[in-house]
């Protein structure tokens, strides 16, 4: 899928969770959201994108995707 679109979508999600005062909860929120609502192929693609440097991903989004990668390998 178009990676820019996926990046934009993760950034949108991260911007929602950015207001969470507890940083760790925010990161977990992003990962949980992606896990619950994103089709696995999209998840694999965004994780791979992060592993290649994660161009375009906001800082918090990167942490969320990183956490997602951990959830998905469990």
């Amino acid at each position, binding site marked *: *899928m*178009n990676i820019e*679109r996926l990046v934009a*979508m993760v950034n*949108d*999600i991260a*911007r*929602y969770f*950015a*207001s*969470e*005062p507890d940083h760790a909860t925010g990161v977990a929120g992003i990962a949980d*959201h992606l896990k*619950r*609502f*994103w*089709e*696995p*192929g*999209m998840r694999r693609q965004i994780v791979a994108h992060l592993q290649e440097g994660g161009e375009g991903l906001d800082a918090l989004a990167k942490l969320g995707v990183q956490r997602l990668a951990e959830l998905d390998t469990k």
Partner: protein
Amino acid sequence: MLSIVDIDRGTPAVASDKQVTLEIDGRRIQVPEGTSVMRAAAQAGISIPKLCATDMLEAFGSCRLCLVEIEGRKGYPASCTTPVAEGMQVSTQTPKLADIRRGVMELYISDHPLDCLTCPANGHCELQDMAGVVGLREVRYGYDGANHVFAKDKQGEANPHFAAKDESNPYFTFDPSKCIVCSRCVRACDEVQGTFALTIQGRGFESKVSPSQANRFLDSECVSCGACVQACPTATLSEKSLIDKGQAEHSVVTTCAYCGVGCSFRAEMKGEEIVRMVPNKDGHANHGHSCVKGRFAIGYATHPDRIHTPMVRNKISDPWRIVSWEEAIAHVASEFKRLQATYGKFSIGGITSSRCTNEETYLVQKLVRAGFGNNNVDTCARVCHSPTGYGLKSTLGESAGTQDFDSIRHTDVVLVIGANPTDAHPVFGSQMKQRLRAGAKLIVIDPRRIDLVRTPHIQADYHLKLRPGTNVAMLDTLAHVIVTEGLVDEAFVTARCEPEAFAKWRDFVAQDKYSPEAMEAETGVPAAWVRGAARLYATGGNAAIYYGLGVTEHAQGSTAVMGIANLAMATGNIGREGVGVNPLRGQNNVQGSCDMGSFPHEFPGYRHVGDAKVRGSFEADWGVTLHDEPGLRIPNMFEAALDGSFKGLYIEGEDIAQSDPNTQHVTAALQAMECVVVQDLFLNETAKFAHVFLPGSSFLEKEGTFINAERRISRVREVMKPKARYADWEVTQLLANAMGYPMHYTHPSQIMDEIARLTPTFHSVSFAKLEQLGSIQWPCNDEHPQGTPVMHVGEFVRGKGRFMLTEYVPTSEKVNAEHPLILTTGRILSQYNVGAQTRRTANVMWHDEDRLEIHPHDAQERGIKEDDWVGIESRAGQTVLRARISERMQPGVVYTTFHFPGSGANVITTENSDWATNCPEYKVTAVQVTRVDQPSEWQKRYQVFSHQQQALLDAAETP
């Protein structure tokens, strides 16, 4: 004219704790205090003659036919306007009363045509019935005097009292010569519909019914709801279909297939032909009212454009080939199997429909999950109310509105945000107006001055005309006022909500940055108004929020829904009558299609596919192993199609090529697929890109259920056989069997039994129970055997209510020098959604093209005048519409409807979407508007392509 089966008790039912006992014609009867003598008599099985009384309207007391004698009282009081009293003794039949009634009827008939045998009301005329009841045998006054009956007098001179028939309305006629001036039409327009389009002009013999000061009906303020036609006791106001076809011989109760109000109708039939649709007085959602769409715009079901045979083609540039059902189904199954064998199990999917029944929707998602072996199923709620599901589930614990419509009768403050009920949910809009006229306060939050802001006898207390895209800012600033001014219902919050989440939320909204003063620059709404509105909402008594797509179709749609739930919880406005959070659903079965497990991550009843226990229950029942990961959402399907991994799509009753944003992106995705299957009534925009067309059935052609915006499950009944042989559920079943997943239902009731078996909130629902109760609001199970009108009573579905943080994140869709205006979109009363149905009816007389509404200031700056062609350009595309200069919009904001495909409204909208659900941001697009003199490039291409596709349809041949 009333329904052929309705019993009219003369005056409305009255609710009272106190019962009154009286005697009518020697029969003792007990009725609630406040009941009229007429209604009490009707309840005892005694009919009192009447003409101006009908139980949809308040008593009026003008016809003098319903007079009675009451022991100990002087004179002959009208039974319609006389309330019962304890111990009252009433006589309805005495020689004196007979004499008076005959005299009254004699006067009526002396000014009424005697063409009964050829009159459309013949067989169901109340005037004729009353003449019979009172024993009228002669009219001593003759017909030579002043009258409204004849166009000319005996000398051939024009009769100044005569008025010709008004046939301007496409659906009904107004024949003043038959009018008895009972005022039922006027009162129906006032009391029921609330439009106040009709009046009685003149006094005494000069009195006549007049639409908007002697206009023709079509030119008047009349909204063609038909309440006046239904109320008319004679043929003065008659449906044209009744005039054409004569009286119906039977009547079938069914549910309207237009908006989310879900009105109950009696389809009045002659064999398999509909004579007219009459709203059902016993209908729990609509109580006998309807709008111009539901009552009149049903001609699409028998329109010549309907396709009755399956068709197949290899490429979309090929002519269609008419094939048998067997061949079409075998072809789809073989193609889908080929695609899965070539590109993998996940390369195909399905889209369910909010216009189909629950049973049909359920089967499509079952076919995808069990037959295709993946979870690539979604529904058009993706583009309308998916944020409602997300937002309400997160906060309250259930993805649905909290109330029934009748709840508004107990509301003191109505808050409408991002909804336009008088256009998009007209029958509930009328109910809302009734409550507002009775004194409830009104807050409207909308960038546009919708009709409700100022309409007869209603004026919004606050209209917060915010900038499009700032809903969350507005909700947060309202919350700020409630929290910082000490208006929180602390007792409610303490007892009912999670304390930690509340504390976090309270600190969050109390930040100075969310004060109305700080937010003024963002929302454009004066701080003092925001404070006033927040105080009114929090302290004005029972406060209820009604919202629509103006909330959900934003980049922060889900955040806004959570913001709404936060407000309701903070002020204790949830869990009883008169309050709540009420999403007004766009299409008839949006709620149902969501309930039925249409989303790629959820089974029926909103349970995640990853939940092993839930999945296990479906696996046991369906006899297959199910995938445990979410599938693709509709916009994901488009992306996957464009990257070559998604190849086949089964679309039941949706038109994504018109309704989804960024049209050119959607059509490119459709063209990238190898097998697009469209099941629909018409060759819609999506079908022009399809390889297989399976003819669908209208709501008149099948059995099933719809669920409206108040979670109300209502029956849809077959009044005519499916025009293309199969109802939609049967087509899905054929396809499942051909794909190798067996389904053997013989009636939709068996599908509902399966839904009930597998879905806790539907456990006690069955067709038999629906027959018994008329309709049921889910949850309906052992705990709530009769259903649940009001949810979250005593406790939230999720236990404790959870306040969610709702940071305002401005949309990335911003105005700039290139695109300095914001385009927002909406609906109009006479048209419905993509217009596939309503465009094929006479409703086009009210709206035959989408226009761009633009503020005079913006128009003047661009040299644009009314009716000019204007180009509207966004970063996604360009289209051309005619301009309508309007002050409904604020400067800087333009508006259009999207009912005509050639308008290309979605050519302009972008791929931006709600962060949580990917619901498109339809309501905010930065655009430039310029005067032009020709259609856009897209429109030119669209015209050519559409003509080609029509030609390929016309060339369709049986091999």
